[in-house]
């Protein structure tokens, strides 16, 4: 048993696992990161951008050394109807401050190299079949080939976490607790990208697509600019996918045909198509995060803030806090549930759980009103601009009156009241 023993084993080389690994290695703890893919990032997928400050917390030198694509200077919120679009754009020149697009596979490989340099061991091509338990305590992992033992196991095996389920720390995931996302990456010359989005070689643009063709569902489309490619995709709540019998690939095909979007990716050569689940349960679906000899971090712990499209940084932060807890536990030689409860405290004191708590009701509030917020209102906004920008022989006052009346006559009044109530409830929920 002793020859296969190490202080900490981390399952999964995503952002949570790597952040945990490098934090432990920097504290001179013996740590092994196991990864089921053939390299770090091989099984990972995300929209496209990471935030600078939370990343610096783990990798202080990443702006100089890591493979970064573009620093985002513009965020476009694009409301779509079948043929029209209304765009709100926020642009800043403080471009190294907020977020940057990355290619997950390249970036994660760089991250794991940093962890290895700090002293962590890395084992790719290794699938953990189960956790080894002894008297109710996790003492190691069982892979296809071998058993490995450790004082602590950190589970960072992603959204489908089979290990958290084995321990029954996490309940069976329901369709309403996840969204299914698909993404395509299109190769395009960097000058073409620069021209299409008004960028230079280092700056980037993020687009959020709201409405058509996801006008009845809780879903959003996204676009990120990389150096020599564009990532475009969408995510839809699995509950809605089930109800509406949707195939997300078909929906993405529809989105790409939209007259506002098609020119952005025109002549691009498809490089990759991918799919992934996104935890959507928020604060209410965070599982039990620690037990004897074990902690859960990242997507495996359902730590995603969907409102701000934060997943990677919550994974970084939770991985780091799990590692800091492990360091104290190793120093005290106490791996009990009680000792590891420090992890929960640390998370609660950080922005991770504070933010998830802030938004805990918002998706539940909006979900029943999806057809309103993602279908009806994008249409009404487009309608307003159509009236405002069109000059015809009709007097404007008459047009505006007709438009305002339509808000009350298009649908039953109850719908409007429900929406206003939903907005008030959501805003109050965030601010209280």
């Amino acid at each position, binding site marked *: 048993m002793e020859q296969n023993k190490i202080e900490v084993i981390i399952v999964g080389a995503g952002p949570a696992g790597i952040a945990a690994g490098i934090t432990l290695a920097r504290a001179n703890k013996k740590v092994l990161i196991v990864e*089921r*893919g*053939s390299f770090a*990032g*091989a*099984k*990972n*997928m*995300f929209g496209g951008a990471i935030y600078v400050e939370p990343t610096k917390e783990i990798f202080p030198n990443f702006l100089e050394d890591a493979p970064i694509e573009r620093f985002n200077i513009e965020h476009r919120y694009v409301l779509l109807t079948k043929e029209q679009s209304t765009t709100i754009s926020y642009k800043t020149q403080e471009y190294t401050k907020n977020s940057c697009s990355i*290619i*997950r*596979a*390249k970036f*994660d490989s760089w991250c794991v190299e940093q962890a290895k340099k700090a002293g962590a061991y890395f084992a*790719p*091509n*290794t*699938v953990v079949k189960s956790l080894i338990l002894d008297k109710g305590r996790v003492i190691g992992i069982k*892979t*296809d*080939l071998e058993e490995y033992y450790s004082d602590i196991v950190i589970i960072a095996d992603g*959204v*489908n976490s*089979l290990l958290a389920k084995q321990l029954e720390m996490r309940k*069976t*995931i*329901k*369709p309403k607790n*996840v969204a*299914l996302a*698909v993404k*395509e*990456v299109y190769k395009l010359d960097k000058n073409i990208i620069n021209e299409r989005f008004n960028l230079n070689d280092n700056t980037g643009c993020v687009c959020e697509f709201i409405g058509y063709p996801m006008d009845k569902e809780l879903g959003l489309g996204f676009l990120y600019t990389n150096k020599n*490619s564009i990532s475009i995709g969408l995510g839809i709540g*699995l509950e809605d*996918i*089930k109800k509406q*019998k*949707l*195939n*997300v*690939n078909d929906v993405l*095909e529809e989105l790409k045909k939209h007259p506002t979007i098609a020119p952005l990716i025109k002549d691009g050569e*498809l*490089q*990759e*198509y*991918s*799919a*992934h*689940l996104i935890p959507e349960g928020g604060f209410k679906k965070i599982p039990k995060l620690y037990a004897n000899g074990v902690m859960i971090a990242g997507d495996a712990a359902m730590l995603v803030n969907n409102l701000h499209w934060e997943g990677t940084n919550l994974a970084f932060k939770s991985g780091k806090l799990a590692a800091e807890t492990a360091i104290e536990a190793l120093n005290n030689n106490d791996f009990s549930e009680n000792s590891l409860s420090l992890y929960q405290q640390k998370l609660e004191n950080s922005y991770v759980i504070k933010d998830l708590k802030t938004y805990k009701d918002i998706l539940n509030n909006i979900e029943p009103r999806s057809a309103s917020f993602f279908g009806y209102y994008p249409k009404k906004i487009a309608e307003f601009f159509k009236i405002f920008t069109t000059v015809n022989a009709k007097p404007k006052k008459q047009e505006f009156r007709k438009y305002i009346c339509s808000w009350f006559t298009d649908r039953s009044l109850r719908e409007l009241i429900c929406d206003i109530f939903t907005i008030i409830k959501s805003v109050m929920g965030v601010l209280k």
Partner: protein
Amino acid sequence: MNIDDKLNKLKYNCDTVSHLNPCAADCKECKSKICTIICPASVYEWDEENRKLIVNYENCLECGACKIICEKKSLKWDYPRNGKGVTFKLG
């Protein structure tokens, strides 16, 4: 572009056994056959003649949606063995 052309762009290292194992008896009773509709890689097809689910596991993107959405909650879903399955070169 159809789904096969998209999947052709991906790097797969196929395992010899399927990591996706539906329960044949449950599939016969399943009304919605929802996995055949929603899978983003069109892994599942219903063979009406033989009344069984065809599983093109080698195309799987390993998202896990089928397991969660399965009407009978009986789809056995594992990761492909040691490094096998899909590799995202970009992600």
